[in-house]
């Protein structure tokens, strides 16, 4: 790979290709021939396509200069040392898996008793180096490596992750919490996870992104989730990292017949966050929910990019994203629903509502329906607007001051997404963080 002449490499890729040369001997799976080949193929791909640019339709509203203009260093040893305990959510009883700058830290993690014995869990490194050959080939099977440079980069340079398989018919008693702590200055974390939920089993997973310090960091994650027949998974992506953190988050889901998947993404932190969430309903009678809420201020930029592929009959899907944009923040939403020719009796709904609070905020939204079957019911709606003047007046006429009335209404606006969070302690925690953030923002000048 290093042999590829420089002038043939896509701009900005050189640094990471160099890192591969230096670090590939200590990356997970380096003792396994298959893994090494996979990484090399992906690196070549990355060198060729490079990072996306705004000329790519899928990235037109997200300038990546803040990421591509910096050289992040992949962490393989000496990751950030922070007390994992301080990132806990009050009253949340969970099995925890801790990652520091993308590297799995087995010590504070509950790997041994994860899922009360129903889950077979392995760090990516031991899975690839020592795991059964037959299962290895499934690793990364649905991650859209061809899609864009970030997934190719993750495939080539992932530095940690877990592989979990929930046994058929099992129900996990409490949520599994994957906590990704980033902290070292200009650290690059590239976790890669695989979750298999076998037939008829049920689990809750909370992916959390937090920062141990104020430094700029890049987290480029890729997670694949495979749901067998009748399996059920509730998935949460909670982004409360520092305002200097960058993240590209990828989640790919493949659902078999009668499975049920729901994802709730809540974004409150980060400088630039891009979430790629892609679900393929591959078996009849499957159901998928995607909910998202974000509240942004300062110069935050959040891009939610969802893809819902209906590939089988009788499937239903529901999508609701709500965002609040203050100060100079920018929100982007792209929601794609594709109904393939055989997916008759599809019912797919999508809505995206945005509240703009400031003169300098911007929203770019692009719902997208591609329908190749006729017996379907699909709809999408998008609204963009400001606070309801009448509601504001009502509250003020009852003696509530303007700032409080505004934060009350803003809070109410996103609360129907937060209300979808079934883990009570997590919902209460997010409501509190959001509430504090809204009050805090009011102290900033610049609001209308």
């Amino acid at each position: 790979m290093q042999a590829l002449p420089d002038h043939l490499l896509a701009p900005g890729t050189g640094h990471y290709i160099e890192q591969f040369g230096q670090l590939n001997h200590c990356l997970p799976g380096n003792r396994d021939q298959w893994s090494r080949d996979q990484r090399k193929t992906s690196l070549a791909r990355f060198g060729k396509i490079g990072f996306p640019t705004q000329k790519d339709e899928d990235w037109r509203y997200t300038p990546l200069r803040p990421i591509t203009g910096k050289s992040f260093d992949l962490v393989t040893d000496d990751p950030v040392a922070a007390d994992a305990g301080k990132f806990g959510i009050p009253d949340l009883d969970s099995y925890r898996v801790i990652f520091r700058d993308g590297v799995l830290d087995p010590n504070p993690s509950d790997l041994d008793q994860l899922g009360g014995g129903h889950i077979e869990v392995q760090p990516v490194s031991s899975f690839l180096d020592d795991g059964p050959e037959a299962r290895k080939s499934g690793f990364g099977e649905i991650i859209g490596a061809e899609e864009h440079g970030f997934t190719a980069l993750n495939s080539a340079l992932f530095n940690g992750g877990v592989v979990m398989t929930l046994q058929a018919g099992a129900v996990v008693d409490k949520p599994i919490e994957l906590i990704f702590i980033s902290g070292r200055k200009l650290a690059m974390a590239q976790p890669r996870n695989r979750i298999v939920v076998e037939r008829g089993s049920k689990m809750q997973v909370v992916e959390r992104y937090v920062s141990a310090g104020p430094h700029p960091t890049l987290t480029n994650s890729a997670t694949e989730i495979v749901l067998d027949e009748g399996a059920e998974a509730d998935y949460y992506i909670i982004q409360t990292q520092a305002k200097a953190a960058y993240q590209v988050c990828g989640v790919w889901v493949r659902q078999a017949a009668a499975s049920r998947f729901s994802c709730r993404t809540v974004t409150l932190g980060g400088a630039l966050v891009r979430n790629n969430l892609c679900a393929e309903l591959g078996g009849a009678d499957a159901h998928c929910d995607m909910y998202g809420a974000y509240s942004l201020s300062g110069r935050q930029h959040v891009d939610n990019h969802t893809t819902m592929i209906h590939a089988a009959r009788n499937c239903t899907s529901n999508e609701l994203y709500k965002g609040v944009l203050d100060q100079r923040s920018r929100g982007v939403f792209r929601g794609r629903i594709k109904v393939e020719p055989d997916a008759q009796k599809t019912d797919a709904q999508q809505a995206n509502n945005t509240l703009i609070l400031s003169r300098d905020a911007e929203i770019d939204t692009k719902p997208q329906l591609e329908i190749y079957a006729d017996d379907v019911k699909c709809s999408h709606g998008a609204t963009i607007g400001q606070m309801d003047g009448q509601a504001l007046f009502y509250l003020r006429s009852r003696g509530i001051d303007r700032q409080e009335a505004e934060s009350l209404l803003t809070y109410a606006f996103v609360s129907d997404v937060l209300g979808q969070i079934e883990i009570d302690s997590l919902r209460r925690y997010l409501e509190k963080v959001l509430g504090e953030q809204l009050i805090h923002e009011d102290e900033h000048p610049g609001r209308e």
Partner: protein
Amino acid sequence: MTTTEKDLTSLVQREYKEGFVTDIDADTLPPGLNEAVIRTISAKKEEPEFLLQWRLEAYRRWLEMDAPQWPHLRYPPVDFQNISYYSAPKQKKLLDSLDEVDPKLLETYTKLGIPIDEQKALAGVKVAVDAVFDSVSVATTFKKTLSEAGVIFCPLSEALKDHPGLVRKYLGSVVPAGDNFYAALNSAVFSEGSFVYIPPGVRCPMELSTYFRINAMNTGQFERTLIIADQDSYVSYLEGCTAPQRDENQLHAAVVELVALEGAEIKYSTVQNWYPGDEEGRGGIYNFVTKRGACQGKGSKISWTQVETGSAITWKYPSVILQGDHSIGEFYSVALTNNCQQADTGTKMIHIGQNTKSTIISKGISAGRGQNSYRGLVKVLKGAEKARNYSQCDSLLMGDRCGAHTFPYMEVKNPSAVVEHEATTSRIGEDQLFYCRQRGLSEEDAVSMIVNGFCKEVFKELPMEFAVEAQKLLGISLEGAVG
């Protein structure tokens, strides 16, 4: 269903009624495009120097561009060197009445069902038809009534001679020469078109209309229409299109520019029924059109209404730039794709001025193997205080091999803007169909009734005589699509 199957089959397989070639000796340039061809076109049309330079500039820009790849369309690349860029009927003298028109032309129009020679007799409805046969206008009527009102309605080439100042001022002001690939091509080689100027305070006394018709073999048609509505004026413009049957694809890359000054209103309606190709998708017109209006003045209004039932491929986004405060943009569209037709159509509403409003109503119908896409942009710039947009895109699917797609873009940079978008996709409700059938309607009639109801919001925007034609067209294009 079986009782009507036979009728359906015969209807579906009905040959394109408008498909025939009129044998007129045309003065045609050999295929190919280069600067010499552009100079020849310009010289043949005795154009002023500035226009030649403008054409050449557009051509140079075009050479550097690539045909757009982003539409949801599939077709083989067009060989632009295999197209003849100029074709004019040889007879050139101007005519005062229809009697002097070449009877073969009149015959063509009669076959099309255009009542051009009956219009004078039509009581109550006055429609002036500046009939464009291929590239040169040959019949112009009702000039007198219009000139009494001060309205200028003439071929673009004539306007260049009589009103060069106006043309120079506005040509390319809304769609610049290098705007996009097909607009640049049009700017370089446009052959003819219509020019309309409505003076201040004048309400145009009649609906203006032009029938475009592609004729000679392998002749791309590059029309250019320019409509200027001066302060507080009003004009309603009708455009209808049909084309004869061909085996080879024909390219049509037209440009329409509208300028509405303070308080002016332009209503632009289109019924497009060009040859869509046969059931296997052979032949048919490539319709790559750039249409854009600028609401330059305060309180101005531009309204686009289109019924697109023909063409193998439609690529068309009539847009409005809402510059003036309190200006209004509207887009009403029905697009139908049957057999192998593909359409990627929609609109752009660019809100620049304060209190600007836009409405988008788009109805897409897909049948057979048709692929129908709505692609639209609503952009609210920072200064567009209290901008308001409402968009609704509905798609109706008939048959399990067709596709309906929506690609709306919304970019909002102003907190006081309110933008709403709704889209639905479904097939004709079985309950609706059952209800109609149970009341004694045949399946055909029921479908036709439901589809017409689906499109009603758009049809009611069409001028009366067009609305009737549009309903008929829709009926004919769809009959047999249900089964």
